[in-house]
């Protein structure tokens, strides 16, 4: 800090200070890479410490320090140590210092197991990252992990502090070797802007002061880097206008304003805007603030907008530029970072906070999880603490959003457990899913596999066809009893029962028979969707109709069983008395008597009912089902 100016001309100093920009950065490193020492030194050398703090530091350094008579800067940062003892698991500490040109907020995350969630939290508000590594160890798995995470969170400015150069004799060769290693990895990731800085946090070399021991290095010191790196906030002013409505301000009947922080772009009175997700357009009347109306509001400012038209706008809506509106969707592909002990489960519903909206969100399939260290994609059905996955999410209602890549404030979200209210995950919206994928998605949220899985079985249909009186119903009953006894969830659709209910409006004309068949097929299909094993006992005389039924099901899930009893034998046995009635004209169109039955050409199973009885027939069906693996 420029204490000269402070002493000489405080007003000039204050004026200069007003113009300082703010840079937020995150430091990442593994335990013992020297992170605390580095941050402590930044605080110390930028004179952010008071005498009493320095005195305490000196005393502590003597008492518990690791540096002998020297100051142990790491002791300035003990906040997290205490926290660790208390078993806190999510911890990011924020520290502050300033120089003549900038004010800094450092997000400091300890390098232990909880790293992913801490780092993601710290990185979410950072403009830039400082990744530490130990010059003796070079680019380690952790370095890759840290780089990947800051890259994922959208940080595009990365300084890699190659620390402890004093322990490798300030070797230029070693530094270049590390640089080569890092470059190779960065290319794989698509990381473009990064700067490697050889330094020694302990000795203060290339931190603020340029190192005399490394004359071969002509790049910036760490501080020079931080002083000059571009600040994100200014970039967002060029994005399309976005205002997530945080609060509706209605102090009196004649004022209705929409308060929020501008998440992107700029806005002026007279500009056309659209309220999303409704899609209603209007014109900005005023950009209101306590200090008077603004001619121009820009990203980062907290303002209150009034509109020309009286339209319905509430918290959770987004006001966006009419000529560059944000997309609206209800289904997304997103990257999720899981932050809770309880795993993220497919099919579970959470609350999603995106922009200012809070909506129920169900995680549909987890497409894959990412092995952060190798960037490998692995199939997964759940995400555990600190895991990262790409998932499909379905919301309870549509929301306006941007891709995270385009706008962090309208594309980042958190997931909240509905029962504990804890924040359990963070996510980045990648894209809305097109409608075709949506339909699939809706099925998949709780789909037939999920339902069947709950019942521990495979759904399928046994379609028993044959002439009236052939024994279809009896066989179906016997079969169901066996399946039931084996713990299967079944349902039986009997032609006679269907005729009394669902199809009671139908006659026995050919057209109505076809319709009856269609209804039975659809019902059977719905039942398999429910995860059930469906037994259909249905005359279904026409081949075409049975083929239609078969076409509704997946290969192998439609078992056609021909219960074969010739018409003469059936009439003779006449177990149901129908044939007698038909003979006296009581039943019209009794299949096999006065209308046709087309024998199946290639049934999955033919039961010769002149040779086997009902129980034996049921056993044979069961045997076939086992054989086909349908009961495993």
């Amino acid at each position: 800090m420029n204490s000269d100016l402070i002493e000489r001309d405080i007003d000039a100093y204050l004026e200069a200070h007003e113009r300082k920009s703010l840079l937020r950065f995150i430091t990442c490193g593994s335990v013992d890479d020297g992170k605390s020492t580095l941050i402590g030194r930044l605080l110390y050398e930028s004179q952010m410490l008071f005498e009493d703090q320095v005195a305490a530091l000196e005393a502590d350094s003597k008492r518990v320090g690791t540096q002998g008579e020297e100051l142990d800067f790491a002791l300035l940062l003990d906040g997290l140590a205490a926290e660790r003892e208390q078993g806190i698991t999510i911890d990011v500490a924020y520290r502050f210092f300033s120089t003549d040109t900038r004010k800094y907020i450092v997000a400091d995350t300890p390098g232990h197991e909880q790293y992913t969630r801490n780092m993601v939290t710290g990185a979410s508000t950072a403009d830039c990252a400082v990744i530490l590594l130990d010059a003796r160890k070079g680019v380690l798995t952790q370095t890759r992990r840290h780089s990947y995470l800051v890259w994922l969170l959208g940080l595009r400015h990365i300084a890699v502090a190659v620390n402890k150069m004093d322990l490798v004799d300030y070797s230029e060769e070693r530094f270049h070797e590390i640089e080569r290693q890092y470059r190779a990895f960065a290319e794989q990731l698509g990381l473009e802007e990064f700067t490697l800085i050889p330094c020694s946090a302990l000795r203060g070399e290339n931190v603020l002061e340029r190192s005399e021991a490394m004359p071969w290095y002509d790049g910036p010191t760490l501080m020079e880097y931080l002083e000059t790196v571009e600040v994100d906030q200014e970039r967002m002013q060029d994005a399309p206008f976005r205002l997530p409505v945080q609060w509706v301000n209605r102090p009196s009947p004649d004022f209705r304003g929409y308060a929020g922080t501008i998440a992107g772009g700029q806005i002026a009175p007279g500009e056309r805007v659209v309220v999303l997700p409704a899609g209603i357009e209007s014109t900005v009347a005023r950009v209101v603030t306590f200090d008077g109306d603004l001619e121009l509001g820009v990203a980062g400012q907290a303002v209150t907008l009034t509109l020309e038209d009286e339209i319905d706008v509430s918290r959770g809506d987004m006001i966006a530029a009419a000529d560059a509106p944000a997309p609206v969707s209800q289904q997304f592909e997103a990257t999720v970072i899981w932050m809770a002990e309880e795993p993220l489960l497919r099919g579970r519903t959470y609350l999603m906070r995106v922009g200012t909206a809070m909506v129920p969100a169900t995680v549909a399939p987890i497409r894959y999880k990412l092995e952060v260290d190798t960037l490998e994609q692995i199939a997964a059905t759940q995400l555990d603490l600190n895991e990262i996955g790409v998932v499909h999410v379905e919301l309870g209602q549509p929301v306006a959003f941007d891709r995270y890549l385009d706008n962090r404030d309208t594309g980042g979200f958190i997931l909240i457990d509905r029962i504990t209210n804890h924040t359990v995950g963070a996510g980045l919206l990648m894209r809305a899913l097109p409608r075709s994928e949506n339909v699939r998605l809706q099925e998949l949220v709780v789909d037939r596999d999920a339902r069947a899985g709950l019942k521990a079985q495979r759904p399928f249909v046994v379609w028993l066809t044959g002439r009236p009186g052939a024994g279809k119903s009896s066989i179906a009953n016997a079969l169901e009893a066996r399946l039931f006894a084996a713990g299967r969830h079944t349902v039986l659709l009997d032609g006679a029962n269907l005729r009394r209910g669902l199809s009671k409006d139908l006659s026995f004309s050919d057209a109505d028979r076809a319709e009856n068949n269609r209804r039975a097929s659809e019902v059977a299909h719905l039942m398999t969707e429910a995860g059930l094993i469906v037994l259909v006992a249905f005359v279904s005389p026409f081949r075409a109709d049975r083929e239609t039924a078969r076409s509704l099901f997946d290969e192998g899930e439609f078992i056609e069983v021909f219960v074969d009893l010739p018409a003469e034998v059936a009439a003779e046995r006449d177990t149901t008395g129908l044939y007698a009635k038909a003979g006296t004209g009581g039943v019209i169109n009794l299949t096999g008597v006065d209308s046709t039955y087309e024998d199946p050409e290639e049934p999955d199973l033919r039961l010769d009912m002149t040779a086997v009885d009902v129980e034996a027939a049921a056993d044979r069906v069961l045997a076939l089902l086992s054989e086909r693996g349908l009961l495993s």
Partner: protein
Amino acid sequence: MREVVAVAENPVMLYSIGKDSSVMLRLAEKAFAPAPPPFPFLHVDTTWKFQDMYAFRAQMASEHGLNLLVHVNEDGLARGINPFDSGSVVHTDVMKTEGLKQALDKYGFDAAFGGARRDEEKSRAKERIFSFRTVQHRWDPKNQRPELWRLYNARHRRGESLRVFPLSNWTELDVWLYIHREEIPIVPLYFAAERPVVDRDGTWIMVDDDRMQSRLEPGEEPELKRVRFRTLGCYPLSGAIESDADTLPKIIQEMLLARTSERQGRMIDHDESASMEKKKVEGYF
């Protein structure tokens, strides 16, 4: 602040009359303009504040039309708790911490804005902006939520509450500069003036009213000194510093060149070496 007002059922702003409260009041006016801040202001009064502070509080309340609630722990008063005989720790614990819990329960507030900052003390560096309290007002370290982007999760069950610290990311310098830029009124005690003080254990304590007068120890003779205060609390517990800084730029100048931190003037930290952490668990702020 808008976020809290949008999601909390019954928010309140803790108003301690100090400079941070002055800044918070201004921010609240800005956040909700043209509406007035849509919540009451609560002062948990220990009855030992400087006379200047009470006068300032009355002035602010009338000028800004604040819905100001003042709560005193009557039980503590009845027990005769005071900073002289009870010691700063017990006094603060009973009159401030207990008093605050009583007031929050009495009015059923589920969210309270406070002026604490992360730069005040190293253990505060990781405090959340939205900090959760159990039904018993305790700070459960395991129950705190990660804060990503600008997305705050303020959901809580009935009886649970949150403390919200909008100034978390401000530094002491930021606060002073903001007061300067925005011309925010603050209690005159922050500015240097001649004041009657006594030297007690190396700290200048102001003789603010006759309660102090009557407790002067043998040999203690109030003397007029040009002093000011860097932090304000209960006057018997607030040390003054000798200073000529009678304008904001001078105060800021002095602060920037100062070699001791703000907390030095707070007796409470000297009294007990217990960490802020512990106080927080007990509900101190």
